[in-house]
C-alpha cells in the first residue's frame, strides 16, 4: 500500500525569533520552502490549532506544531517551538497527522532528525513504523475515503444557515469561492467540508484550505477553487472570488461580476430549506444528509441530461433548448450554467 507521503520538513523557531527550515527529506524546492515558512504559523505568539493543512502545487502540506516547553534543558536548546510538515499527494490529513505526531515526539526527545528520517523511510518502504514510546503508525489504519467525511456537512450548514445555498450554487457552477475566518482551525475544518456539497464530483483538490496573500501563493490558485484565508484583506480582493464566505462576519456575498449567475428561484429555496431543516434534525446523520443532497443533485443532472439533444453521437445541451422549455424565471440560465460546469454543452 502506498503512503502518498512525498517529503517531510522540520521548521524551527529559535530563541532569536528566526523561523528556519532546518531539515528536510528529500530536498524541497526554494519557492515551496518560502510557502512552508509563510504557512507554518510559528511566527504567531499563540497558535490556535496545532494541526492544520493546506495545498500548494497539487501537494498537500500537513503541519503539526509542537512547542518546546523547556528550551533550556531539552535536546533542542535553542528551539522555542517547531513544526513538522509532511507533504503528501493524497488528501488524508489524519494519516499525516498521526505520523507527524510520532516523528515530532521523537524529534523533541532526541533533538536529531535521524529518528524522523528513519520513521519516514520505514513508512515509505514498509508501510508501518514502530517508534517505541513515541507511538506506532500503520498505513492500514487509514483510508483516504474516510478522510472526506471527517468534517461534518451539518456544521457547515449550521454555521452559514440559509446562505449555504449560495455556496452550493458556487460549487456546482465551479465558481471561485473564498472563505475568510480569523480562526485557522475553524477555517480549515469548514473549508474541508465544502466539497461535500457536490459529493458527485468527489474532488477535494479544488481546496486550498488557507493561503497568505502574496504573489507566489495566489499565482498557484487555478479556478475553480475554494480558498480559505485568515487575512482580513482577502475580503477586499474581489478579483479573487465569485463567492465570499465571511465566517467571522457570518455573511456570504457574491461579487458584482458573478451576480447574474446567482439569481435563484423556488428550486433553490426548496433545497435551502431542505438543508437547514436536515442540519437541525438530530435524527438525520451527517452521512444521510450528504447522501440526500447528492441524490437531489443527481436527479437534477439526470433531468438535465434528458433534455439534451443528440449530436455527433453525443448528447448536448444548448441555451436555446432550455429557453424553449419556458422554465421558471432564471432557471434556464442556471441549468445552462450547470450543464456548462458538468461539461454537457455543445462545444
Amino acid at each position: 500500500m502506498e503512503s502518498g507521503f512525498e517529503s517531510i520538513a522540520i521548521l524551527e523557531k529559535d530563541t532569536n525569533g528566526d523561523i528556519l527550515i532546518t531539515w528536510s527529506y528529500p530536498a524541497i524546492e526554494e519557492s515551496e520552502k518560502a510557502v512552508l515558512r509563510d504557512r507554518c504559523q510559528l511566527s504567531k505568539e499563540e497558535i490556535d490549532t496545532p494541526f492544520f493543512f493546506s495545498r500548494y502545487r497539487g501537494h498537500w502540506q500537513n503541519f503539526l506544531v509542537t512547542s518546546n516547553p523547556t528550551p533550556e534543558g531539552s535536546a533542542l536548546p535553542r528551539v522555542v517551538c517547531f513544526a513538522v510538515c509532511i507533504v503528501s499527494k493524497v488528501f488524508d490529513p489524519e494519516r499525516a497527522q498521526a505520523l507527524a505526531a510520532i516523528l515530532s515526539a521523537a524529534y523533541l526527545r532526541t533533538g536529531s532528525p535521524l529518528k524522523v528520517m528513519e520513521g519516514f523511510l520505514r513508512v515509505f518502504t514498509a508501510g508501518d513504523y514502530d517508534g517505541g514510546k513515541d507511538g506506532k503508525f500503520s498505513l492500514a489504519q487509514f483510508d483516504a475515503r474516510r478522510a472526506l467525511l471527517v468534517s461534518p456537512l451539518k456544521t457547515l450548514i449550521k454555521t452559514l444557515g440559509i446562505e449555504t445555498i449560495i455556496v452550493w450554487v458556487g460549487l456546482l457552477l465551479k465558481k471561485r469561492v473564498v472563505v475568510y475566518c480569523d480562526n485557522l482551525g475553524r477555517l480549515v475544518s469548514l473549508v474541508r467540508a465544502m466539497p461535500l456539497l457536490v459529493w458527485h464530483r468527489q474532488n477535494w483538490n479544488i481546496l486550498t484550505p488557507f493561503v497568505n496573500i502574496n504573489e507566489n501563493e495566489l499565482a498557484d490558485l487555478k479556478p475553480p477553487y475554494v480558498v480559505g484565508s485568515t487575512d482580513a484583506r482577502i475580503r477586499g480582493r474581489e478579483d479573487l472570488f465569485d463567492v465570499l464566505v465571511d465566517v467571522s462576519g457570518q455573511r456570504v456575498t457574491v461579487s458584482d461580476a458573478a451576480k447574474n449567475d446567482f439569481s435563484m428561484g423556488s428550486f433553490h429555496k426548496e433545497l435551502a430549506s431542505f438543508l437547514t431543516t436536515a442540519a437541525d434534525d438530530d435524527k438525520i446523520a451527517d452521512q444521510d444528509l450528504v447522501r440526500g443532497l447528492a441524490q437531489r443533485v443527481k436527479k437534477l443532472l439526470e433531468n438535465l441530461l434528458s433534455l439534451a439533444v443528440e449530436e455527433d453521437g453525443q448528447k448536448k445541451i444548448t441555451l436555446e433548448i432550455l429557453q424553449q422549455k419556458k422554465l421558471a424565471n432564471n432557471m434556464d440560465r442556471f441549468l445552462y450554467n450547470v450543464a456548462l460546469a458538468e461539461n454537457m454543452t455543445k462545444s
Partner: protein
Amino acid sequence: FAMEEIDQIILLSLQQIGIEFPPAVQSLKDFDTDILVRCVVKAIRAIRNDKVFPPTLPKEMSGRFRAASNLVAALQELGYQGEIGYQIFLYPNEKDSRNLCMWLVEAIPKADAGEDEDAFGGDGPLKNIRTALAGWSRVPYAPYGSNTTGRIVLPGSTTDASQLQGLRAVRPVRTFAFRAPSAADKDAASVAYCKDLLPLVSVQAGENLAPSLLERNTTDYVKHVEREAEWNTLGMDSGLSAKDYRAKKLSGIAAMMADALSAALASSAAASAEYSFDSLVSGFRLSEGGDHKGTRFSHQTDFGTESSAVKAIQPPSASKSAEPQMSAEEKAELEKRKREEELAALRSRLDAVTQEVAQFEGSASSFGGNKAQLEQAMRAEKEKTAKMTEEYKMKKRIMDLLPEAEKNIAELRSLAEASSQRLLELGAEWEKHRAPLVEQYRLAKEADSGKRSGYRRALEKVKQLREEIQRIAAEIREKDERQKVLLEEVAKLPKDVNRAIYTKRILEIIRNVRKQKVDIDNILLDTRTLQKDINAATETLKRTYTVTDELIFKEAKANAANKPLYKLLTTLHEDFATVLQVVAETGHIVNEAKDLEAQIEQLASRNSALNMEKINGDLAAMRAENAALAQRAK
C-alpha cells in the same frame, strides 16, 4: 547715616529731571507738600510724557484734596503698589515720601528720550519724526513700482491723506515658485543649466519677488524643521542611515501612490459602463448645448421637423421643372413623408442589427463559458494522463517482475532495505555537518542581535546627545539674545558722573558696613569675656561661701559664743542675694525702658504724619470754605 545716603541719591536723580530744590532741603525729611507735589508731577510727566497735572496745588483746601487724590490715582495707574493716599501729599512724612520718591526715580525712563526731549525742547523735529513713523507703520505694506490695479480698499480706512497714499499701491500678494540651484543639482547637466541658462530669481519671479523669496525661505525652513523632527523620532528608531531612511520613505510613498492610482483605475474600470470616455465626450457635447447641437440623432430630428428650413435650402431647379403645378405646401408634405419613410427603414435596420449583436454577444459568452470549462477539463485530463502514465510504468515494472514474484519481491525488499539503510547512513553523515552549521548560524545571529541592541543603545545615547545639543544651542541663542539686550542697555546708560557717584557711594556704604561689622564683633567678644568673668567670680564666691559656712558652723558648734557669728553670716549671704536680684531687676527695667523709648520714637515718627495742629487748622479752613459755599448757595 544710611538713609541720608539714599536721600542724596534720590535728590540727585530728581534734580536730573529738572527739579530745583531750595538750599534748605538736604534730605527727604525736609520735604513739604509743595516740594513733594512738584517732584511727583515732574516725575509723572517724565514717565508718561503728558502734562495733565499742574506743578503746584491750589490754595483752597477742597481743591488741594482733589488734586492730591488725582495724583494718587495717576500713581496707582502707573503701577505704584506701596501704601498711598491723599494724606501722603497733604501731610508728608519722611518714610512714605522716601518710598514714593524711590519708586519714581526707578520708574523714570533712563533712556536718552528724556535728554532728547530736553535737548529739542519737547516739541522738536524728533517728535515729529516719531509720530510720522508711527503713522506709517499702520499703513499696509505695498512694494515699490506696483501699479494701481488690484487695489484693495481696507474696511474702515479713513480719508486721511497719508493713509490713502499708502493704499494706492495695495494689491493682493502673489507668489511664484521659482527654480533656484540647490544641493540636489549635482550632476554636470544641472550645474551647467543653473550656471548658464537658469534666469535670475528676480527675473523669474518678476514683481512678485519679495513675497516669493519670503515664501521660499519659510518653506525651506519649515521643511528642514519637519525633517529634523521626523528624523529625531521615527528615523533614529528605524536604525537606518539618514540616506537609507529617505530612500525607504520615498519608495513607500511611491508604492502608496501606485496603489492609489491602480485602485482608482480599477474602480473607474468597474464603472466604465457609466463613465466611459465616450459618454464623457458626449456629455461634454451636450453640455455645450444651446447654439451647438452635436449628436447625429438631434440632427435627424431637426431635419424632420424644421420643414421651413428644409424648404429654404431646397434646390428648386429639379422639382420646379418636373412638377411645376405643385404648390409649396404639397412639396413640403411629400418631402416630409419621404423622410419619415426613410427614417422608419433605418430604424428597423438598426433594430435588426442590435438583435444580431445581442445574439452574437450571447453566443460569445456561452463560448467563453465553454472555453473555461474546456480548459478546466483539459487540465484535469492532463493530470489524469500524467497519473496514468506513472501508474502504467509502475504496473509495467510489476508485470515484468511478476513471473518470479516471490523472488523478486524478496529482492526488492532487500534492495529497499539496503537503500534506506544507506540513506540513513548518509543522513547521519549529513547531520554531522548540518547540526553545527545551524548552531553556528544561530550563534552568529545571536551575536548580531547583541550587536544590534548595543547599536540601539548607542543610538539612544546619540539621540540624547542630540537633544542635549539642541537644548544647549537654544540656551546659547537665548543667552546671546540676552547679551545683546544687556549690551544695548549698557550703551543706553548715561556715561557721566552718575555712575561714578553711585559706585563711590556704594563702596563707601560697603566700607561702613564692614567697619560696623568689626565693631559689632568686638563688642560681642567683650560681652562674652565679661560673661565668662562673671561666671568665674560667681563660682569662686559660691565655693568661698561654702568653705566659710562650714568653718563658722563648726566653730559655732564648738563654741556657743560663736553662734551669733554664724547667724550674721547667713543674714549677710541672704542680703547679698537680695541685692543681686535687685540689680538684675534694675537691668531688666532699664532694658524695658530702652525698648519703650524706641517704641515711643517709632510712634512719634509715625505720629508726625498726623500733625494734629495742622490737621485741625486744615479742618477749620475746610469748614470755613464749606460755610462760605453754603452761604453762597443760599
